[in-house]
């Protein structure tokens, strides 16, 4: 080098020593960069891409999950609606049935009450009739006694008595139905089955 320095240097003819130095410098740099720095960078790039893609994937998964949940919710809602409609229909039918039942029951009840009322009415009328029959008998005996006992002085008085009696009978038969009033005159014949009962 010192020898070369003395002469005129040709910049395009490098000394061998410099070439070797250059090789060493670049080799060291290449070794360190290619072995440690650039792989580290590649790893970082991959990690970064994965982080971004992972984030996107996670977001997509979350969206799918949310969509599934929404679908499920909607299905459940629809199911609940149909169920509610079914329950409503059933309730309506049941209510109808209950109303029908109650109406039938009420009709039955009212019929029974009416029947019982009629029965009671008939019984009480019969009782009244029976009582009256007894009274009529007594009255007839009393009246007959009075008729016999009286001197039958005048017709008017006699006819008055008979009229009164008949009026009495009429007043009694007015409280009873017609058919029975007719039979009421044959008191003895009606009376017998009443006793037999």
């Amino acid at each position, binding site marked *: 080098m010192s020898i070369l320095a003395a002469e005129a240097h040709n910049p395009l003819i*490098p000394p061998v020593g410099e070439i070797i130095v*250059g090789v060493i*410098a670049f080799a060291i740099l290449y070794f360190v*960069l*290619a072995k440690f720095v*650039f792989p580290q960078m590649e790893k970082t790039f991959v990690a970064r891409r994965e982080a971004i893609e992972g984030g996107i994937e996670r977001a997509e998964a979350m969206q799918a999950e949310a969509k599934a949940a929404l679908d499920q919710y909607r299905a459940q809602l629809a199911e609940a609606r149909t169920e509610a409609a079914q329950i409503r229909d059933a309730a309506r039918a049941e209510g109808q049935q209950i109303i029908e039942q109650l109406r039938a029951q009420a009709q039955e009840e009212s019929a029974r009450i009416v029947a019982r009322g009629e029965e009671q009415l008939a019984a009480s009328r019969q009782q009244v009739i029976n009582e009256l029959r007894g009274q009529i008998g007594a009255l007839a005996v009393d009246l007959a006694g009075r008729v016999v006992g009286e001197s039958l002085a005048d017709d008017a008085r006699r006819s008055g008595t008979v009229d009164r009696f008949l009026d009495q009978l009429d007043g009694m038969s007015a409280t009873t139905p017609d058919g029975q009033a007719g039979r009421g005159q044959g008191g003895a014949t009606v009376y017998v089955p009443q006793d037999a009962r």
Partner: protein
Amino acid sequence: MTSSALALVNVLAAEGGEGDSGFQSPTIEEFYPEPLVSFSLLGVDFAFTRITFILFLATALILALLVTAMRKPGIVPGKLQWLAESGYSVVRDGIARDVIGPKGLPFAPFLGSLFFFILANNAMSIVPALQISPMSKFAFPLVLAVFVWVLYNYVGIREQGAGKYFKDAAVPPGVPAAALILVTPIELLQVFVIRPFTLAVRLFANMFAGHMLLVVFSLGAVYLLQVGNFSVIFAPFSLLMAIIMTFFELLVIVLQAYVFTVLTATYLNGAVEPAH
């Protein structure tokens, strides 16, 4: 010659005559500083000069920067990590992948190493107190160009087979037979000699010339200040020019690192893909 110019010449001659030999323009010796350590190993002379020191300093600095940046890489990068990743991404995506194609990614570490190595060493040309790029010594660009030359020829033989690679280089497909008498020597010369030579010379000459320009204007400014009389008024212009050229040098630093890497990728692309 005008009288004022004649007067200037006279003044300069007078100054020179007084013992000052006038403006000492920088010579080629700028690039051959006195060795700090000089030794001979296995018959090879090693001269550890200032420039050798700067070479190792630049290499160590860029390595320290990148290693520090990627020591604990995060998914969300810090400032330094972002800077380092951006630099590598330019080479990896912008050069290796876009120029060579999908097959280019395996070359990204080599291209990245080239880029960072050249960038760091070029940058030394405007670092105060150092102010010379090791790339202005032909040996270092030449080393890189030889690496590139070996690599693309190796890749071409590996990817296409030796026969097809050399045949395509000598006889480009689609060239008329009559033209081959011209094309074949040119192509062979271009692929195997001119490519690495121009690759190395382009980088070397840019840094060499850049350094010379900076030295000329810097020394010029100092000289104009010292020479006395009215030439002092020209000193600021020379200084301003030196500053402007420093910014221009910054552009050249980045551009040449990029160009060297892109051309390497282009040659690799030719080796990976058969000629069309």
